[in-house]
């Protein structure tokens, strides 16, 4: 029986032709044409009124609105992160009362529209005219008029932050559940309490899973914060609409707002990239710099 042996000696000397990725060239050409066409038509279309865009891009009113958007987003996300983490830990608690209370919080604040919650906090005074601190059904030590505490700004933070906390709690909970049970057991076995194990072992590892969706939520909040227009608080979108309702330059001012939203999103995305890189320490497949 004879088997044809491949001509090895010859094959070793043959030049190698790499696979050609023809599709990549086609895609590159198609996308380049599309980009040139879109950018070109936008730039040359006078109805975009780029001069008006330029005029208002750094106008004082727009910048003030931008500042408020950043402030609202930061404060609301800060409140949401802290409260959301507490609610998530509550959901996973062995205490059935705490766990059900946390579930109810998420149900209530996810289940009603953010706009309703904003209006609710803003008009809190109509329901509860005074806020006091004291013993329920007993003496009150300290009392204020609700309207002095609930400004448009505090109502905006409460409305956006408490609503977002409900979503955040689910993100944090999924992060906590993503850490293998063995990590918690190992922490217990060296004598850690569950608080120590949560702070030092579980949460740091959960963050890796929590950060990407939280980046999503933060970018979403930049734009969701424009809802505060219903309680008369001005941020970027409101500023733009106030200007175009005066001068009817609707499209250019929407472009101004869009440019700033895109810029903020870019900054957040870059921050998220570095945060994710930092949190990927020790993850298989990631070449991390070895410390010490």
């Amino acid at each position: 029986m004879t088997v044809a042996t491949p001509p090895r000696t010859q094959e070793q000397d043959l030049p190698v032709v790499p696979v050609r990725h023809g599709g990549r060239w086609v895609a590159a050409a198609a996308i380049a044409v599309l980009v040139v066409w879109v950018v070109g038509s936008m730039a040359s279309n006078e109805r975009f009124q780029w001069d008006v865009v330029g005029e208002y891009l750094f106008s004082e009113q727009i910048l003030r609105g931008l500042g408020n958007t950043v402030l609202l987003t930061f404060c609301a996300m800060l409140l949401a992160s802290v409260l959301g983490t507490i609610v998530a830990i509550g959901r996973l608690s062995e205490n059935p009362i705490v766990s059900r209370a946390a579930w109810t919080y998420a149900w209530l604040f996810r289940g009603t529209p953010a706009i309703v919650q904003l209006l609710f906090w803003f008009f809190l005074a109509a329901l509860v005219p005074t806020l006091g601190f004291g013993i329920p059904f007993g003496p009150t030590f300290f009392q204020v008029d609700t309207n002095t505490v609930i400004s448009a700004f505090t109502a905006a933070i409460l409305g956006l932050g408490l609503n977002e906390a409900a979503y955040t709690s689910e993100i944090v909970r999924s992060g906590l559940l993503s850490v293998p049970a063995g990590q918690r057991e190992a922490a217990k076995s060296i004598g850690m309490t569950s608080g120590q194990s949560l702070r030092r072992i579980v949460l740091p590892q959960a963050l890796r899973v929590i950060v990407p969706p939280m980046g999503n939520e933060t970018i979403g909040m930049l734009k969701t914060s424009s809802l505060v227009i219903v309680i008369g608080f001005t941020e970027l979108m409101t500023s733009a609409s106030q200007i175009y309702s005066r001068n009817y330059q609707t499209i250019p001012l929407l472009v101004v707002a869009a440019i700033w939203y895109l810029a903020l999103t870019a900054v957040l995305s870059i921050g998220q990239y570095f945060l994710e890189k930092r949190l990927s320490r020790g993850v298989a497949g990631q070449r991390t710099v070895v410390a010490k």
Partner: protein
Amino acid sequence: MNEPLLRAVGVSKSFGAHEVLTDVSLTVAPGEVSCIIGPSGSGKSTFLRCVNHLEKVSGGQLWVDGERVGYRRKGDKLYELREHETAKRRADIGMVFQQFNLFAHKTALENVIEGPVVVRRRDKRQATERAMALLERVGLADRAGHYPSQLSGGQQQRVAIARALAMEPKLMLFDEPTSALDPELVGEVLDVMKDLAREGMTMLVVTHEMGFAREVADTVHFMADGRLVESAAPAELFGNPRHERTRGFLSKVLA
């Protein structure tokens, strides 16, 4: 005769209606190396987990170093331990897991100093010095800055042993420490364990390594179906098993 370091009397454990441990009684003297062998699902690991209260026993009693596991005696009453009290007791018992369970976001060195610094509140520099000595002892001083994902299974398990030793435990529990390892990496972990045994560490080892049990153990316990079938010195248990069940198991694993 010394007071035993570990004493189990009639320990049982059920998960719902399923009883995984039935009336297990055994003792481990200070400095003794005990191995528990037996088929999968015989309750060996569950028993080990009961010893440091990762599982709560359903019946019977366990004592470690004279203290009832999970309870504190005051007068003529037993009080169930609060969480921080249980944590304090666990700190004195080292545990090595089948899946290593090294803290994935910490380097080998950080894994070893975590307990001393966070639980025992030792000075970080002293803890680091001691941790380096322990890593040296398990042959991994040059891997101190590596993350678990950058270490082989055998190296991870040796770091896990160093992490447990850093707490200066009076008892070491090993839960099938070599079962998740590639065959060629089993030896390096067993060597570290043999050293420990020689230095007089009290050890309770759940294992499928019959060679290790025969060579190192003072006592071998055979468990099947949640019951302790027989306990004897290795020469006796391997050479002259008294129970049919033990003979059946040994004939399969030693074949």
